[in-house]
C-alpha cells in the first residue's frame, strides 16, 4: 500500500533525518513505528502522505510514485489523526467530523450521514455530541472525535501520530483497545506512530523500531520483544520487558 524505497530526507540546509530508508506497509496491516522523539518516525508518516518530499529515493502509495500524484487527492484518501487530535476549535464535533466529505464535495445529507456513522463507530452518540464544540469534550472524547474525523471520509488508510500521547494511562489503554479493535474490524491499513513500546506491542501487527532515521528491528510484536538483541531495542523494552514477553506469549497462545 505504502512503500518508501531508498529514501533520503533532509530539511533544506539541515542534517538528513532519513538516509537510504526503505519500508513497505502492505494493505490492511496495523503497522506501528516506535522510537524516541527525533527518530524520524513522524517524518516517515509525512513522506507517505506527501507533506514532505524525499530528497532522494521514491515514495509509492497504492503502487504509484507520490511525486506523480496530486498531493491533495492523496491526502484525502488517508485518514489522519494528528498529535493531540487537533480538532478545529471553532467547529462543532459534527462539522469537524464531516470535513473530509465536505472537501470532497459531498452533498450535505451525505456528509451528515458519514459523520453520524463515524461518530457512532467511536461511540460518541450523535444526539449528544454532534452539536458540541471541542472545548466541551473530555480529553478521551476529543481523541474519539479525532478518530471519527479520520474515518468519515471512508479512506482505506488511517495514519495516527501519537494520538493518545496526552492522555492518562487508564484512558489511554481503554482507547488503545477499543479504537485499535475498531480499525481492525473496519479493515483499515494503519500506520501508527508512538514513542511508547507498550502501546506499540499492544496495538500492532507489526513493529518497526526506529532510531536516528534507521530501522533497528522490524517484525511482529512477538519477534521484536522475544528476540530483542540490539542494545537500543533492549533499552526501549526496559523494565517492562518481562510484562511484554508475557503479553506476546499470551497473545500467541490465544491466536494459535
Amino acid at each position, binding site marked *: 500500500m505504502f512503500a518508501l524505497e531508498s529514501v533520503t530526507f533532509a530539511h533544506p540546509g539541515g542534517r538528513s533525518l532519513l538516509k537510504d530508508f526503505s519500508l513497505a506497509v502492505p494493505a490492511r496491516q496495523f503497522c506501528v513505528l516506535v522510537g524516541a522523539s527525533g527518530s524520524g518516525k513522524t517524518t516517515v508518516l509525512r513522506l507517505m502522505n506527501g507533506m514532505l518530499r524525499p530528497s532522494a529515493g521514491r515514495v509509492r502509495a497504492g503502487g504509484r510514485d507520490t511525486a506523480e500524484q496530486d498531493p*491533495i487527492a492523496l491526502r484525502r*484518501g488517508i485518514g489522519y489523526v494528528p498529535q493531540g487530535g*487537533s480538532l478545529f*476549535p471553532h467547529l462543532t464535533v459534527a462539522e469537524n467530523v464531516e*470535513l473530509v466529505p465536505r472537501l470532497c464535495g459531498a452533498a450535505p445529507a451525505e456528509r451528515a450521514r458519514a459523520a453520524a456513522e463515524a461518530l457512532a463507530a467511536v461511540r460518541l452518540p450523535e444526539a449528544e455530541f454532534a452539536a458540541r464544540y471541542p472545548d466541551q469534550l473530555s480529553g478521551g472524547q476529543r481523541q474519539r472525535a479525532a478518530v471519527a474525523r479520520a474515518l468519515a471520509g471512508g479512506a482505506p488508510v488511517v495514519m495516527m501520530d501519537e494520538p493518545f500521547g496526552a492522555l492518562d494511562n487508564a484512558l489511554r489503554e481503554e482507547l488503545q483497545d477499543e479504537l485499535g479493535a475498531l480499525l481492525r474490524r473496519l479493515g483499515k491499513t494503519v500506520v501508527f506512530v508512538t514513542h511508547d513500546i507498550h502501546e506499540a506491542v499492544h496495538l500492532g501487527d507489526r513493529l518497526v523500531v526506529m532510531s536516528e532515521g534507521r530501522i533497528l528491528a522490524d517484525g511482529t510484536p512477538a519477534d521484536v520483544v522475544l528476540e530483542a538483541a540490539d542494545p537500543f531495542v533492549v533499552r526501549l523494552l526496559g523494565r517492562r520487558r518481562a510484562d511484554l514477553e508475557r503479553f506476546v506469549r499470551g497473545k500467541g497462545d490465544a491466536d494459535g
Partner: protein
Amino acid sequence: MDERTFWGFFLGQRGEILRLTLQHAGMVAVALGAAAAVGLPLGVWLSRRPRWAGPVLWAAAAVQTVPSVALLALLLLAPVIGGIGARPAVAALFLYSLLAILEGVHAGLRQVDPALSDAGRAMGMTEGQLLRLVELPLALPSVAAGLRVAAVTCVATATVASYVGAGGLGDLIFRGVGRANDAMVAWGAVPAIALSLAAHAGLSALERRLARRARLS
C-alpha cells in the same frame, strides 16, 4: 432662541449638525471600506510571505507617524487625489486605517496554532480551503480589533479634514473657534466623540462575538 447657547445652537442648526455628522461618518465609512478592501487581501498575502511582511508593515507604520495635518497638506498637492475637497481627506484616512487593518489580519493569521493548519493540510485541504475554513475564522477577532482601531483613528482624524475643505464635524469646531462661539465648537465635538464611542462599542461587540464564535474566549 440664542444660537450662542448650547441648546439654542442645536435647535437652530440641527439640520446642519446632522448633515455634517453624516458627511463625517460618510468620509470615515468610504475610507475604512477601501482600506478593508485593500488591507484584508494584502494582510492574507503578507501572512503567506513573511519576507515581505516586515517592509510592508514598516511602510504602513511610517505613514502613521506623519502628522495628520502634514499628510493632508501633502495629499492636497498630489495629482489625481489632490485639490480642495473630500478626496485628499479620504485618501489620508485610507492610509491611516491601512496599518491597523493590516496588522489585525497579519497578527490574527500568525496566531493560528500551526498544529491546526498542519492538520488541515494533512486531511487534504487546499491552501484556499485552509484559509477559508480554518485560518480566517480563527483570525477574525483580531481582524475586527484592527478595524476598531482604524475606525476610531479615522473618526478623530476626519475632524482635521475640514482644513482641506472636506467638510465634516471639523467645520463646526474650526468655525466656532474662529467666531468664539462655544456652542458651535461643542456641537462639532460632541457628535465626533459620540461617533468615535459608537464605532468603538460596535466593533468591540463584533470582536467579542467573533471571539466567542471562534471559541477563543
